[in-house]
């Protein structure tokens, strides 16, 4: 039954994809030439471009996009100057920034959340700060970061760090503070020390909650990096999108959207798998 259901939903997905492509294709056909252009000088027509002559549509159809995706996949890491490098290397730049900011956030938020979660007093004391800082768009930190750090590269990492830290911090605090008292009592009656209790009782007990926080964070970090790179420029998939917009290459913008989506999904699946690995049944 379950296999049957999966087969059905898979088939339905393919049908949806087909429908989207058909509609997309139909709506991006070249429009008929402007009647005012009839009888114009052929040399002038040549200058105003294929769109005006009714030979192409500025909005690419699925076929053009598929061709472009294929050409990117064939040579993802080419380098033809600072403003023209393969989408693969742009994605790697973005991933590297996300990885640095994200792991820094996890490295700080997990031990900090542990400490806060262990103490109800500290937990209450820190709460207002977290509540105020959490809803701030990470891009709002950008000017402050640029002013203090000056170099733009660490700035984008800082922006990722600041957006990734809150979900991990909040979830770690919550996970640690809500470890069932029974488990702590078992550890106490066994005279397990603080370190042993933290490592073998509190950490595994809170692990699913912590990893859920990490999963939320990686999603946010991947959202934010595109915007951050649009501001900072130079390299990265965000810069690529903005650069292609300046080039008026809509096809590349759509291709970039697809790649961003796929990588975002892969990151999410990865963290979901890790969460699944540490989740336990009560």
């Amino acid at each position, binding site marked *: 039954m379950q296999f049957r259901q999966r087969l059905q939903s898979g088939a339905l997905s393919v049908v949806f994809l087909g429908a989207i492509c058909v509609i997309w294709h139909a709506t991006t056909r070249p429009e008929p030439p402007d009647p005012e252009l009839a009888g114009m000088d052929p040399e002038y027509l040549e200058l105003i471009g294929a769109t005006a002559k009714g030979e192409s549509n500025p909005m690419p159809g699925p076929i053009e996009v598929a061709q472009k995706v294929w050409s990117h996949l064939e040579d993802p890491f080419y380098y033809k100057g600072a403003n023209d490098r393969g989408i693969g290397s742009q994605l790697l730049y973005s991933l590297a920034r996300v990885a640095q900011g994200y792991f820094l956030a996890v490295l700080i938020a997990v031990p900090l959340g542990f400490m806060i979660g262990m103490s109800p007093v500290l937990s209450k004391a820190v709460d207002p700060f977290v509540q105020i800082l959490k809803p701030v768009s990470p891009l709002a930190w950008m000017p402050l970061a640029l002013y203090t750090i000056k170099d733009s590269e660490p700035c984008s990492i800082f922006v990722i760090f600041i957006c990734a830290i809150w979900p991990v911090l909040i979830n770690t605090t919550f996970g640690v503070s809500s470890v069932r008292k*029974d*488990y702590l*009592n*078992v*550890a*106490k*009656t*066994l*005279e*397990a020390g603080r370190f*042993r209790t933290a490592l*073998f*009782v509190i950490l*595994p*007990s809170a*692990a699913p909650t912590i990893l859920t926080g990490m999963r939320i964070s990686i999603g946010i970090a991947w959202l934010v990096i595109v915007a951050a790179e649009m501001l900072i420029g130079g390299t990265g998939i965000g810069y690529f999108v903005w650069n292609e917009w300046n080039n008026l290459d809509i096809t590349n913008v759509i291709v970039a959207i697809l790649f961003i989506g796929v990588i975002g999904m892969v990151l999410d699946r990865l963290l979901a798998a890790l969460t699944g690995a*540490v989740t*336990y*049944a*009560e």
Partner: protein
Amino acid sequence: MPNKSSAPNMIEVDGLTKSFPSPGSGDDVNVFVDLNFNIRKGEFVCLIGHSGCGKSTLLNILAGLDRPTEGFVCAAGREIDGPGLDRAVVFQNHALMPWMTAMSNITFAIKSRWPHWNKSRVRERATRYLEMVHLNEAARKKPAQLSGGMKQRVGIARALAVEPQILLLDEPFGALDALTRGSIQEELIRICRTTEQTVFMITHDIDEAMLLADRILLMTNGPDARLCETFVNTLPKDRERHSIHHHPNFYPLRNHLLDFLVNRSKALSEIKQTIDSRNVPEVVITAEDENEVALTANS
């Protein structure tokens, strides 16, 4: 008196009172007041009382997880000031770590007790205790994959594996069906008889208490619960679950306990002053004369 009267005291409870702040304003509410009793080495003692008389609170104090408002508890001559490996607890809801297998739940306890043991020694001991509760096949299973009875048996194995001076059981079989409960009770009897383990167990099941306990402590209803009777189990030591009710003494004893739970626990809680909490009467019902209740004072 049974033959264990000469054994040294493992647990001494002296003037124990526990109060909680009352929900509204006003005075604190006493859960229990001025408890005095001893548990001798090798003895199996059950505590019976209705819900709300502070049974679990008392056990938590003995375990060192809770503190009394007044009075003190000595374990092996030393005052209890916190939880310790000399007192192992089997919790009401088993409290096995759900992320660990049955085996690692036990090895965690053993490693806490003997931190310097090597892996194979820890494993060997854990295997031995899993075998003791007949769960070798379940070693690699997580608690969620085990039945309620199996979980509680792992809990018992974990508690015993650290070689505690005293085993504290908090209504461990309350949530189990009758069949499972019976088989675990038999295992517990077998283990305790062979190892001469000192046990303090909380229950509200009279039959369980009569099967397992050498002595049964009876508490009045709370609040202000008191210890009002020490009941000596005069059934033969080698009693078995399937034959215990054929013993001529079984029903007189059982009726006495039942009568306590149904009538006297409430009545006694209303006439507090009649109980001398420092000199709780000891009740011995002997086989020779079923109708006579011999009341002797605790010395």
